[in-house]
């Protein structure tokens, strides 16, 4: 098994990566601007819907239900997709998914001189399994066709947002990338100029390349249909023009019925881009003679997802419909951008998804990359209680740490044990209060506490800290009672 979420294996811990990201003023301006715009649009479009909370309840309930009967719905999807001429493959992990894709592409693509080409429409799941490098290694050239994905691919960059992966780049940076990679002599720097350049560059590929690769927003068990939600029309191109279509779908993307789409197609666009409806949704069922690809393959991907099914709190993470609303709402994400999360899944949902898919190995700092402010939960269209899940995962990190010798003697653990002891022994707690008020004296710098050592230094580095008052509340209360007692006598 090689469960992999992007390149997370080599990513530094969040606080380190965040510090670095925040030194890039351009990135921070871009991220701030983009998230503010989408947030504003989302609020406007959600406010139009008096039944929004009821839609969220339905979305959450459909997802919860589906996951509880996941085997049933996956088999039903497989049956109906194959009945309509599709072929369903199953992949346990990233390597298996990539191997299936490569085998299929080589089977249909033959041995073209200079390698086989494929056009791709935005698929987070293929980023998750790092499909592009795997294809390149097999001599296959994948072209990302979503404007933002193309910017990321050409810039040899990493996506920094689930919905707008290149939001960290501004028009000037994008222009530079396009001039270099499209080998252009000149190019304007207006967004329309850049989109035009992409149109011309990709149109030729849409008309010529025989193999398409997509992800899916929904796989409908009842009919075997697959649904892709998009805006630019590159999705329709990739789903319609090639002879062969390969669609990579995480097993959690299956939904029971066609009718369920009416819930999700109301929730997703308003949450993702603040639109009443995104420009295009494509639905197709297997192979349609005379219309679109005449060979259609689905790869159903596990890659760690089944590990989340057992625990109810963890299972809820799989409800995610990848709208990115939690990223835009998150004050942490808005400061750092997506790269700091060291995973293609960034922001609050990334902070709970990546560590679970990867069994915490490489991403133990992510559950702590949140102030637990709850803004993510408030906007989540399928009501994933992300703060609660972060706390749950923190519990796992702590327990795992405490099981190691070094973890058990770490200052944080010792401090927490001491605090827990004092809090359960009120007399000692009271004594500690008095001791602290006296003991802080050497740390005082004028009227304030000076720079503190260790973990607490993180506080005093950026903020002033007033000293502990000489009289605690309980001291005040006791002296007042004494006084009242005296007066009563």
């Amino acid at each position, binding site marked *: 098994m090689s469960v992999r979420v992007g390149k997370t294996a080599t990513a530094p811990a969040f606080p380190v990566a965040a510090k670095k990201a*925040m030194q890039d003023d351009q990135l921070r301006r871009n991220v701030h601007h983009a998230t503010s715009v989408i947030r504003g649009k989302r609020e406007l479009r959600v406010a139009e819907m008096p039944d929004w909370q009821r839609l969220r309840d339905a979305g959450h309930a459909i997802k919860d239900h589906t996951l509880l009967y996941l085997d049933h719905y996956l088999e039903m999807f497989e049956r109906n997709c194959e009945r309509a001429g599709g072929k369903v493959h199953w992949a346990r992990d990233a390597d298996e998914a990539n191997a299936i894709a490569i085998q299929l592409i080589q089977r249909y693509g033959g041995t073209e001189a200079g390698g086989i080409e494929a056009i791709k429409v935005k698929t987070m799941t293929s980023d998750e399994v790092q499909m592009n490098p795997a294809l390149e290694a097999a001599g296959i050239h994948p072209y990302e066709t979503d404007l933002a994905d193309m910017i990321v691919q050409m810039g040899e960059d990493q996506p920094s947002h689930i919905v707008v992966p290149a939001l960290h780049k501004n028009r000037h940076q994008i222009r530079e990338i396009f001039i270099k990679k499209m080998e252009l002599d000149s190019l304007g720097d207006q967004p329309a100029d850049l989109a035009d350049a992409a149109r011309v560059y990709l149109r030729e590929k849409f008309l010529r390349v025989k193999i398409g690769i997509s992800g899916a927003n929904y796989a409908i068990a009842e009919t075997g249909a697959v649904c892709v939600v998009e805006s630019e029309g590159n999705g329709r191109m990739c789903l319609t023009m090639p002879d062969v279509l390969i669609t990579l779908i995480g097993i959690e993307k299956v939904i029971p019925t066609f009718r369920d789409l009416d819930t999700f197609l109301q929730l997703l666009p308003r949450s993702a881009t603040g639109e009443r409806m995104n420009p295009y949704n494509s639905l197709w069922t297997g192979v349609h003679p005379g219309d679109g690809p005449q060979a259609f393959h689905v790869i159903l991907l596990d890659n760690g997802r089944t590990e989340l099914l057992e625990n109810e709190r963890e299972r809820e993470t799989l409800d995610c419909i990848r709208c990115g609303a939690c990223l835009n709402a998150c004050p942490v994400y808005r400061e750092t951008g997506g790269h700091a999360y060291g995973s293609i899944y960034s922001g609050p949902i990334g902070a709970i998804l990546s560590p679970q898919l990867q069994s915490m190995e490489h991403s133990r700092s992510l559950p702590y990359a949140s102030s637990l402010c709850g803004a993510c939960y408030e906007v989540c269209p399928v009501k994933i209680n992300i703060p609660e899940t972060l706390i749950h995962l923190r519990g796992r990190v702590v327990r795992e740490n405490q099981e190691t010798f070094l973890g058990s003697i770490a200052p944080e653990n010792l401090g927490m044990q001491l605090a827990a002891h004092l809090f359960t022994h009120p007399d000692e707690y009271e004594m500690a209060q008095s001791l602290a008020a006296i003991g802080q004296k050497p740390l005082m710098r004028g009227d*304030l506490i000076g720079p503190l050592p260790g973990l607490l230094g993180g506080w005093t580095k950026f903020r002033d800290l007033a000293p502990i008052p000489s009289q605690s509340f309980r001291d005040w209360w006791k002296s007042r009672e004494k006084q009242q007692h005296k007066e009563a006598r």
Partner: protein
Amino acid sequence: MRIALFVACYNDTLFPRTGIAVTSVLERLGHTVEFPMQQTCCGQMHYNTGYHNEALPLLRQFVETFRHAEAVCVPSASCVAMMREHYELMAQKENDEILLADVRALLPRIYEFSELLVDCLGLEDVGAYFPYKVTYHPSCHSLRMLHVADKPLRLLRKVKGLELIELANREQCCGFGGTFAVKNPDVSAAMLKEKTTAVEGTGASICAALDNSCLMQIWGGLHREGSPIRTMHLAEILAETEATQ
């Protein structure tokens, strides 16, 4: 009414003035305040940081201390959020039916300070006088977990002499987040910077909230920047009268 005060460990130690203010407001309104000395901490710091086993005895201690209270007043929204969001869950995880029943019996009698005044005592005007420009930061837990909505604002609007100034982007987190502030100091500081910029933009001389934890963060940022703006818990403002001014 006999009201038991759970002052919260950090208020007890770092912000005794808030507990004093709560006592003063409630006694001024004719209520009896009790302070059970066995109380310490609600367990939030441990629980939210992942020390779930360590938080459990604190839950038990809280329940033991307050089980007979008529009403419990907590001048800390985040502590109340801890109790409402997690206490039942923690008892369930322990499979402790007795503890669960105790928690369920106690929770409806626990009020955050502004909830106690508005919901339980049915008050908005508590007879306070405070002739200053004040802005209000709705702390995340009061806003998104307790849903106190405009209760604190209604209380502030009834304070004589007080000019309430809207805080820009007010629902955004100040960056405190408990141990987040020290585990991710750089991000926390960047979030704080946005908050202090907004606070300074109001022209107010006081920034108020329902949580001294957030105010400790906001004051720490303002003071480091040399700003004269002070921070005050809502109770401290409501405790002020023409006589105290």
